[in-house]
């Protein structure tokens, strides 16, 4: 247990928006998989190829020896994914029931919940950006030149699971949080809007920027996968660095630092 002083690390807007994101992204991901199940393939280009093949991923169910098998094709390589992708519980569906909201197939319900939380996410982004610009949190997130020089050491320390509990974020933390907030979430919003036929009329350059609506849909999906990867590492780091201290920090703002560090 760290024995250093308690520091006030996360302000109220930072904490509230953190939890709004957590809730929104939970719903957005699971309703997103519900929506994906209505057309379980990803394409490159403006349209989905039916008379030609421009898919990089397809998830199918095929009847084999009287049983339903899930078949997933990624860049031409074929995998049997029964039970998880393509077919599960004897049903033909891309992502299994446990990973979709609602659990039963309902594109309409998935869409309604998805767009509700899309608005919550966008609203949270706006509040967070304004508050963080005013209270200095933005500067807490952006790596300084000294940070970047310390990057190799920080990587080595993380690899040895040696964490420095200080008032300041380490450079890897800054890079991880900044890439979620300044790259992944904006990319999600922009690729999402690229898929809207209404918004396409307002900004035709947007789907063009992503090389077509279907490519934008593919990037939307892959960014989701990247965010799931971030979530897994985020959880692992919390567990490894001291879950009680980390949870107190994101709930109350107060963080116990190590002795002799940033006191």
């Amino acid at each position, binding site marked *: 247990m760290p024995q250093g002083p308690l520091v006030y690390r996360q302000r109220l807007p930072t904490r509230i928006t953190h939890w709004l994101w957590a809730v929104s992204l939970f719903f957005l991901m699971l309703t997103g998989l519900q929506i994906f199940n*209505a057309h379980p393939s990803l*394409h490159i280009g403006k349209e989905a190829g039916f008379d030609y093949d421009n898919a990089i991923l397809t998830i199918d169910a095929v009847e084999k020896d009287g049983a339903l098998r899930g078949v997933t094709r990624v860049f031409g390589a074929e995998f049997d994914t029964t039970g998880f992708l393509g077919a599960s*519980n004897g049903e033909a569906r891309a992502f299994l029931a446990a990973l979709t909201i609602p659990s039963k197939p309902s594109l*309409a319900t998935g869409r309604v919940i998805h767009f*509700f939380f899309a608005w919550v996410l966008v609203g949270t982004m706006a509040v967070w950006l304004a508050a963080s610009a005013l209270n200095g949190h933005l500067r807490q997130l952006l790596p300084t030149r000294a940070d970047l020089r310390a990057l190799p050491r920080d990587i080595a320390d993380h690899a040895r699971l040696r964490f420095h509990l200080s008032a300041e974020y380490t450079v890897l933390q800054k890079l991880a949080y900044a890439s979620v907030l300044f790259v992944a979430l904006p990319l999600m919003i922009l690729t999402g809007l690229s898929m*809207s*036929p*209404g918004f396409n009329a307002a900004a035709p350059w947007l789907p063009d920027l992503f090389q077509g609506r279907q490519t934008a849909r593919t990037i939307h999906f892959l960014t989701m996968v990247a965010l799931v990867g971030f979530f897994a590492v985020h959880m692992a780091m919390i567990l490894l660095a001291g879950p009680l201290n980390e949870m107190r920090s994101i709930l109350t703002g107060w963080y116990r630092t190590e002795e002799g560090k940033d006191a």
Partner: protein
Amino acid sequence: MLDRRKLLLGSAALALSGCKVFDSATDRDSALRNLFASHEGLTRAAQRAVIGDRLAPEFSEADIRQGQRPNGSVNPDGAEYRRMAGTGFRDYRLTVTGLVDRPQSLSLANLTALPSRTQITRHDCVEGWSCIAKWQGVPLGTVLKLAQPRLAARYAVFQCFDAIERSLSGEVFYYESIDLIDAFHPQTILAYGMNGAPLPVANGAPLRLRVERQLGYKMAKYVHTIELVDNLAALGSGNGSYWADRGYEWYAGI
């Protein structure tokens, strides 16, 4: 009964999964559903504000790489429709009625004699796929002006030949509606041609709607009647379209 049993067994299996707790949102009368569905008004207002009367993107001939994928009904089997299809829709009539001063009954020849518009656009299905095709037709606004809409008119309702569902109370024919902002948009056309040929039956012959700034389900196929109304309460269950009555957004700009 068998289906009901399967459904119950299926539900029991699904109860084991984590996300079952939100399944009440599929019930259209639940408070949870209504909370989530509140996004629709915001989405419509926001989109209308930023889109204005701008055009949907149009594409080049080189972007047409395949036929237009048909979806929903692909071959209506009503006796009247079959008879007309058998004679090349010679005696087809489009009826324009409701809140208009001069109701119309227009043949295909009448419609093709009006100034036409051709556009290569991307059709986005609510399922997630897209398909690019060339559409030729008469702007809906031109047809509505012939009928002289009354001031009270706010929506155009489309009645179609395709029975998408058979319920105990009889056949449910496809119905759809758009407001007059979309109805008079220059790209909103009643299409009778596709990819340089007459509109195929699978894609809605003889006449289908194109509303290029919304999703595919708004673009009613096999249209036989357009009615101008001041509200949508009397149509279906009152949500304005076949799919809106089944939980999808009436405004399908996203």
